[in-house]
């Protein structure tokens, strides 16, 4: 379960002054569901997710992740989170096994448990062939599988995906989408940020539309369609953010 309460993050810029990356964002993502955070580039999706993953501290507001407060108990919150983003890369000089083992240890797992879990994940994700090869020689698909295994090694209750299909080819992106759906099937709390409308339509149980740091609309796909009188998700999004604005 994720519960965000009035999350606000302010960055200070010498030229532009105060910048509200997120402004009073509140939402709730229950287990066994996918919460989609839909927004354009720079809308505040990554900042929101980084705060939930405790990589950033909110300026005001707070959130609980798997029952732990992200400000007061960031390490405990992180121990229950699996975070995957386009920006979370692999150690090129380590093998996939070494990479996953490392994160297993960082999550406090014993070596025997890590070995067992790697065996299981490798079978599930079809990684046997490249498990002992160095990550710098991997194709994009292999990298994504290794990242997923790294994310799942400690079997977290909450999964956060920040534009995980960004820059991926169709087949790899489909595999990711399939995997996200599996997580929901396993009863995980999933939060998925994207600016791709079709992914939101296919995946998300609840959608939050974020723009200029504010959560402007929230609901199921059907609710949003009804509220904005549009069937096409792109039109719904444009209406929710108040039009197309200046090009």
């Amino acid at each position, binding site marked *: 379960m994720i519960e965000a309460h009035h999350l606000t993050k302010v*960055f200070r810029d010498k030229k532009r002054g105060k910048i509200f990356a997120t402004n009073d964002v509140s939402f709730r993502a229950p287990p066994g569901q996918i919460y989609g955070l839909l927004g354009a580039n720079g809308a505040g999706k990554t900042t929101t997710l*980084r705060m939930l*993953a405790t*990589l*950033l*501290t909110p300026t005001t507001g707070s959130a609980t992740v798997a029952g732990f407060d992200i400000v007061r108990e960031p*390490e*405990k919150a*992180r*121990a229950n*989170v699996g*975070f995957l*983003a386009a*920006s*979370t*890369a*692999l*150690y*090129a*000089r*380590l093998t996939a096994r*070494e990479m996953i083992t*490392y*994160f297993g*240890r*960082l*999550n*406090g797992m014993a070596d025997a448990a890590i070995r067992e879990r790697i065996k299981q994940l490798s079978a599930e994700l079809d990684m046997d062939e490249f498990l002992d090869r160095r990550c710098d020689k991997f194709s994009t698909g292999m990298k994504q599988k290794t*990242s997923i295994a*790294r994310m799942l090694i400690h079997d977290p209750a909450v999964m956060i995906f920040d534009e995980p299909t960004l820059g991926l080819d169709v087949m790899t992106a489909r595999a990711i989408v399939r995997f996200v759906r599996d997580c929901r099937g396993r009863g995980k709390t999933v939060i998925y940020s994207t600016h791709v409308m079709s992914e939101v339509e296919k995946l998300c149980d609840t959608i939050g539309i974020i723009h200029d740091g504010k959560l402007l609309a929230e609901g199921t796909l059907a609710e949003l369609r009804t509220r904005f009188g549009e069937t096409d998700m792109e039109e719904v999004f444009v209406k929710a953010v108040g039009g197309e604005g200046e090009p």
Partner: protein
Amino acid sequence: MNLRNIVTVYLKELRDSLRDRRTLMSTIFIPALVMPLLTFGVGKIMSGVIKTAREDIPTVAIIGGDDSPAVVAALKKSDKMKVVEKPTDYEKAIGDKQLKVAINLPAGFEAGLKVGAAPAVKVYYYQGELKSENGARVVERFLTDLREQTVADRLTEHALPKTLARPFEFQRENVARPEKVGGNLFGGFVPYLIIILCFSGAMYPAMDLTAGEKERGTMETLLCSPVARVDIVLGKFLMVLTGSLSAMCFMLISMGVTAAVGGSLMIGGATTTRMAVGTTPAQAATGPIPMIDPMGLVGVLGMVFPVAVMFAAVAFTVALFAKSYKEAQSYLAPMMIVVILPAVIGMLPGIDLNARLAFVPLLNLSLVCKEMLSGVWHWHYIAIIFGSSCVYAAVALSLAVRMFKREDVIFRA
């Protein structure tokens, strides 16, 4: 702080770094090669050049001397120089390195010798040009011999003993112990090398583990783990420190091996100066064989440790601020000058350790190492320097931890 997490991070970084060519170059290969290269490469070339210059028979032009046939004949007869035709412009010829030396025998020189009123002889040479300076030395030796011979002839002429002009002889005798000689010779040079290698050894792991990770996107991956930031900093910092210390250790091992294998020629090889670690006094007594006090080396290692910690923490902090490996390089490369400067000052003769200098970072290390390698142990200064270095190291390390906790640094874009 969790020791298990620190060790986990450290071991991963160690494994990763051992697979990084740039880190291996700066922490193992270059430190291991620097002494053999200096000794057998640069040293050998230098001594070869000096030897060739010294064995070179200089070309000498005689200006004037028409009324001094005996002196001219003696100059031409000398096998230490080659008298050549006087060029039209001898100064230009020396400047163009076509002629090494010119000797000006003024009019009436030989006649003046006989009556004891010879005018001064001038020797023209090219200052800073090794062969020309050597030629000038040969000509001056000839003139000294001529002067002494003239004195001897006059004494004989007046039936006086030669001891009248040379009443006694003297001789130099070295009383400094071999390790003091070695300490004075290498005492400035060794800390200089250690300081540079310690810093460069820390530089590359620091850049790779901070800015490099940010650039490659693995920093965010790591920060997603439940490990406390301070544990991550300490694990990474220990790796940077390992790089710094391994650079120093490989340099010292290589220095010992080079010396043992027959490290001649590093400094003034042509004069058969040799460096030896652990040479016995009996061996030293047989000739000028400077050696480095092994206890001095141990002392140097002890004194360098907190400085290596400081280097590792500073390099880590500076590199952490950068967005990319390249940016980190542009910050840390100029810092090398800041590091070298006090080390160079410490090498200068005449700069001695005092209470004020004992607080100046790096310069204090350079000076105290020079003393320890010469077998001088000023314990109060050693305590001040070790203590102050520890304080500087602690401050640098706490700064590294604080920087790592700053979001605007970690996610600087």
